[in-house]
C-alpha cells in the first residue's frame, strides 16, 4: 500500500465541498479520441526512439507506480492511498483490452499534457500530469514508443475506491481549473541550455516536486513553497532548495552519483519512496541526470551545514540517549566500515539534521531491509527492542549533539505515528524493481 499526500481527510473533505460548490462552472470532460484498430506492431517504432523512451521513462519513474508489488512491469494495480481514497495505477502495457494498446500517440500525449484518458475523462492527479504537462511532444513520442513496445499484459487493476465528493467527475474538472496549468516547458532565456534541460526534466518528467513540495488541503502542490519539502507514503521528502538542511552541502557530482547509485559516501543512502527513484535513474542518460543535479544544486546553493566531523568527538554524557547511541549506533556509523556493513557518521545524516524526524524514526524502527537480487545497504530495525521513549530519547540526543538545529517539536507524535504505520513502507524499498525481467518489462 502506498500513501501519498499526508493530509487530514476531514480538512480535505471540507475544502472539497467548498470547491464543488464553487466549481459549478467546472470544465467538463474532453472529446473521446478514436481507438486504434489494433496495437501498433513493435517494429513500427524506430529502435533509437524506443531506446530514448526507455531512458526518459526511467526519469518519469513510470514503472514504480504502474507495477504492483506482485505483478508484471507496467501492468498497474499498485494501490496509492490518498486522503481522498485509494487509487489503483492503470495498466500502461499495450494490451488492447486492459492496457493502452488502442491508444494513439495523440491520446497518450493528451493524457500527459492535459490529464484525460482516451475517452476524454479527467484523470486523478495521482498521475502527476500537473508535472508531465511540461514534457515536449518529442519526448512524449519516445515514451509512447517505449511503452508500446513492452510485452502486453492482460490485467485489469481493481476499481478505485474514492470517497464522496472526490468521486464526482466535476470535482476533478474544478480541481484542474484551479490548480492545473497545461502547456509544455518554456525555456528561460536567462539561463543556458544545460540549466534549462535540467529544469525541464526535474520540474516536468522527473516530477521531483510531487513529493518535495508540500500540498494544500486538496492535494495540490503549494506553488509558494516549491521544493520546501513534502510527504510521501509515510516518509518525509526533504527540502531541496535554499532551505535544504543537508549537513554536507550537495555538489553536482555528489548529487549525480547519488541519483544514479542510490547512495553517496558523504550523504548516505536513498530510502523509502526515493529508493525506487534512484533505482530507475540508474537507467537514465548520464547527461540528463547531470543536468537535473546541476539545476537542483543551483537551487540549494549557499547552504552550509554544521561541521561534518562533530560526530567523531561527540562525548558521552551518561544520558539514556547517549548510552543508546554509543552502544547501538556508533559501531556501524563510525565511518570506518564500507557499505553495506557501515553507515555514514550520523552528523552527516540529513535524517538527523532534516526538518522532520519521520525518516529517522522509520529507519531506527524498521532498518533498511536487504534488497532482492541487488547489492544494497542494510540496517537491522529496532522496532522490537526499542520502546517509543527510547527512540525519542536517542533521536533527541542525536539532534542536540550532532547538529546545530533546534529540537524537533513533534518528535513524540511522529515516532508514535511511525510505529503505528508499521514496517510496510520500509519493506518496499531498496532495489526497486530488482533484476527480475518480468518486473522490468524487458521483452528481450
Amino acid at each position: 500500500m502506498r500513501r501519498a499526500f499526508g493530509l487530514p481527510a476531514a480538512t480535505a473533505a471540507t475544502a472539497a465541498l467548498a470547491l464543488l460548490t464553487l466549481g459549478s462552472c467546472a470544465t467538463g470532460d474532453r472529446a473521446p479520441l478514436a481507438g486504434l484498430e489494433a496495437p501498433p506492431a513493435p517494429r513500427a517504432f524506430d529502435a533509437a526512439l524506443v531506446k530514448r523512451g526507455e531512458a526518459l521513462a526511467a526519469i518519469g519513474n513510470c514503472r514504480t507506480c504502474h507495477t504492483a508489488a506482485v505483478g508484471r512491469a507496467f501492468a498497474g494495480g499498485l494501490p496509492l492511498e490518498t486522503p481522498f481514497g485509494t487509487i489503483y495505477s492503470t495498466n500502461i502495457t499495450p494490451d488492447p483490452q486492459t492496457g493502452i494498446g488502442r491508444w494513439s500517440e495523440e491520446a497518450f500525449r493528451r493524457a500527459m499534457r492535459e490529464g484525460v484518458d482516451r475517452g476524454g475523462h479527467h484523470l486523478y492527479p495521482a498521475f502527476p500530469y500537473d508535472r508531465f504537462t511540461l514534457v515536449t511532444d518529442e519526448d512524449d513520442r519516445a515514451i509512447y514508443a517505449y511503452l508500446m513496445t513492452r510485452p502486453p499484459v492482460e490485467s485489469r487493476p481493481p476499481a478505485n475506491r474514492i470517497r464522496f465528493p472526490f468521486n464526482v467527475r466535476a470535482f476533478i474538472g474544478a480541481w484542474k481549473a484551479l490548480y492545473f496549468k497545461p502547456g509544455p516547458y518554456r525555456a528561460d532565456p536567462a539561463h543556458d541550455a544545460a540549466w534549462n534541460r535540467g529544469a525541464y526534466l526535474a520540474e516536468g518528467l522527473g516530477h521531483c516536486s510531487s513529493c518535495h513540495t508540500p500540498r494544500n488541503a486538496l492535494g495540490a502542490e503549494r506553488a509558494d513553497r516549491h521544493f520546501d519539502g513534502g510527504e510521501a507514503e509515510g516518509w518525509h521528502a526533504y527540502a531541496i532548495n535554499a532551505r535544504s538542511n543537508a549537513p554536507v552541502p550537495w555538489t553536482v557530482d555528489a548529487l549525480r552519483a547519488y541519483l544514479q547509485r542510490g547512495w553517496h559516501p558523504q550523504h548516505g543512502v536513498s530510502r523509502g519512496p526515493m529508493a525506487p527513484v534512484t533505482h530507475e535513474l540508474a537507467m537514465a542518460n548520464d547527461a540528463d541526470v547531470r543536468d537535473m543535479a546541476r539545476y537542483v544544486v543551483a537551487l540549494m546553493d549557499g547552504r552550509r551545514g554544521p561541521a561534518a566531523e562533530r560526530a567523531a568527538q561527540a562525548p558521552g554524557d551518561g544520558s539514556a540517549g547517549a548510552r543508546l547511541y554509543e552502544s547501538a549506533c556508533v559501531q556501524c556509523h563510525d565511518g570506518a566500515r564500507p557499505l553495506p556493513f557501515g553507515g555514514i557518521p550520523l552528523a552527516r545524516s540529513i535524517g538527523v539534521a532534516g526538518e522532520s524526524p519521520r525518516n529517522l524514526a522509520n529507519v531506527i524502527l524498521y532498518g533498511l531491509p536487504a534488497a532482492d537480487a541487488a547489492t544494497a545497504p542494510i540496517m537491522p530495525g529496532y522496532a522490537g527492542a526499542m520502546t517509543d521513549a527510547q527512540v525519542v530519547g536517542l533521536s533527541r540526543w542525536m539532534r542536540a549533539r550532532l547538529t546545530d538545529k533546534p529540537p524537533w517539536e513533534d518528535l513524540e507524535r511522529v515516532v508514535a505515528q511511525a510505529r503505528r504505520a508499521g514496517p510496510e513502507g520500509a519493506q518496499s524499498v531498496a532495489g526497486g524493481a530488482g533484476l527480475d525481467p518480468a518486473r522490468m518489462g524487458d521483452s528481450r
Partner: protein
Amino acid sequence: MSGRIEVNGTWRDVSSEPDTPLLYVLRDELALNGAKYGCGLGQCGACTVLVDDEAVFSCVTPLAMVEGRRITTLEGLGSAASPGPIQQAFIEEQAAQCGFCIPGMIMRTAALLRKEAHPGEAEIRKALHPNLCRCGTHMRILRAAVKAAKA
C-alpha cells in the same frame, strides 16, 4: 558495569559492558546457548529472542537497550525433557536439518503466537520472513509453525 534483566522469568544481574550484544550476555555470561550467532548483523535471525513479547535480533541489541526488560530465550519455552508446544511441533515435523536456524524460527513463531493465537499460513510466512534457513527446510519449518498455530 552491571545491568539487570529478567531472563526466562528470573531476574539476573549481569556484569557485561552496556554495549555488549544481548546474545553474548546470554551465551557467555548466562550460559544460555539456545540463541545462535549467525551473521552478527541482524540479517539472518539465528539469534532471535523475545524482548517483552517482541522478536529481536539479539546480536545487534546492546545490553543498554534492554536493561530492566523481560527476555525470553529458547530455554524459556521448554526443555529437551519437556518441550513446549512450539518446540514439540518442530520435533514432530522434523523441521531441522542442520538445526542452526531453528531456535530463531521457534522464537519468531513464539512472538507471532503471543500476538495472534491462530494465525493463517500467510501471516506465518510474513512473520518468519526475516529468518533465513540455508539447508532449505522451509516447508517443514512452515508445517511446524502451522501445527503450532493450530495447537
